[in-house]
């Protein structure tokens, strides 16, 4: 199957129903339900330890639910099975192989799938070009700045043209400037790829700025609230200064605080 044909398949819809995850008998995620639309950008915020990572990992199939269900649908709403190419992950630590060059790291998912060397390096190169990482392809990850490493990790996640992109506090370890730049990058990538994006973040501003909807996981263990729809005049500098942006942040903040008061 060619690498390019995938962009047309559209984002995956995700239907999470009464998801609950226990570790050694204690709830990590109490009750999460959300219907993520195909091609939607959903941000998840919540108390630390509230199960955001757990929910994201469950969606990605990295851990099994104790109860509840997660199903995937295509653009038309029909139920589908997901393959390893359909989901891209981006973790805060980047998780690059330190002994591989940037290009070889980005090509890894295709390599593990048995895509030939020429084809996978071409795909990696195209992805790196898109991420404005030309010129560092032959460098080792340890030679890059934190922001560049994160871009490489994003390029790797996107190289299979996933239909669902899962991001777990990807820019949490970066400074403010780098983070804003990468936020903009992520937004445009999400739009042009058509993939559904689920972003876990501890920054309310980031959550609101990027998302179509914000899901608050309240309390510890987390319980999902009704997602807050985000509509902004724009997503750039002006958007961040807008009244709508400020009031949406306040709404999310209030939804969160109600959670911590209950817990206290």
């Amino acid at each position: 199957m060619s690498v390019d044909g995938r962009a047309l398949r559209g984002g995956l819809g995700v239907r999470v129903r009464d998801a609950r995850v226990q570790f050694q008998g204690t709830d990590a995620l109490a009750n999460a339900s959300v219907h993520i639309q195909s091609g939607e950008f959903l941000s998840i915020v919540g108390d630390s330890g509230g199960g955001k990572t757990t929910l994201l990992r469950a969606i990605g199939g990295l851990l099994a639910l104790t109860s509840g269900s997660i199903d995937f649908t295509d653009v038309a709403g029909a139920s589908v099975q997901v393959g390893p190419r359909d989901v891209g992950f981006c973790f805060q630590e980047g998780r690059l192989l330190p002994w591989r060059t940037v290009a070889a790291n980005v090509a890894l998912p295709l390599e593990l799938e048995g895509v030939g060397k020429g084809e996978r390096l071409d795909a990696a190169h195209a992805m790196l070009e898109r991420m404005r990482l030309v010129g560092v392809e032959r460098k080792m990850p340890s030679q890059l700045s934190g922001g560049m490493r994160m871009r490489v990790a994003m390029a790797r996640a996107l190289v299979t043209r996933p239909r669902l992109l899962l991001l777990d506090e990807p820019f949490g370890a970066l400074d403010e400037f780098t983070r804003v730049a990468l936020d903009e990058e992520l937004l445009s990538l999400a739009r042009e790829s058509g993939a559904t994006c689920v972003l876990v973040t501890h920054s309310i501003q980031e959550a609101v700025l990027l998302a179509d909807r914000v899901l608050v996981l309240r309390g510890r263990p987390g319980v999902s609230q009704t997602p807050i729809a985000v509509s902004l005049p724009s997503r750039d500098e002006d958007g961040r200064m807008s009244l709508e942006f400020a009031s949406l942040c306040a709404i999310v903040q209030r939804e969160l605080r109600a959670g911590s008061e209950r817990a206290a």
Partner: protein
Amino acid sequence: MKRSLLVAMPPLLVLLIALLLWEGVVAAWKLPAYLLPSPSAVARACWEERARLGAGTLQTLMASVGGFGLAALIGVVAGSALGSSRMLQRGFYPLALLFQMVPLVAIAPLLVIWLGYGLRSTLAAAAIVAVFPVLASTLDGMRGTDAGLREIFGIYRAGRWARWWKLELPSAVPSIVTGCRVAAGLAVIGAVVGEFVSGYAGDQAPLGIVITASMREARTDLVFAAVALSACVGFLLFGIVSGLGWLLLRRWHASAVQEN
């Protein structure tokens, strides 16, 4: 260059002073040569017996290098096998630990029975003592593979072979290099001890045989010469292994890469 000189100077200086003291002590107390030959006497013996010592050094070097190579190969393969299977590890690792505690001198006669006198036996002796550190460091390194990276390989459904070759083995390289450095020193010890028992006593006699023969002839100067040469073999092997390790590890360390 300047830095390597700075590293090499102090120990060389200490060595020189020690040799001078030694020379002085032997001269002052008029110690007999069979008890403690002076460094100059040892140097003279080295020169006079250069043919015999040269041949012996070559034999010991072959046994050490061959034994080390075999140990590195077997150690990495066996360590990888144990590292990829919990069952194999449970079954074999405790036995490997026990086996490693059997003294080499006790096994050496068996090697003579199976492999005869000569290089094959001494090489095997070197390999036997050197294999365990490589095996253990391979196993350790593989088990220390970052869980996050493992998850990446899981997400893309990597097969067992890909996991080993592309993730676990590269992760284990720093640990394996450390194990190999230990093994390099041990291989020389194994070779010389093996030679005591199973060395071939002829005109191509290895250093271990030179040592035991010279001891019987009260040629203490030759014993010292052979000991010094076996130490040199050890240094050489250690140096080569460290150098190769550095070349491999360069990819893991940014500082080393940027220096080029």
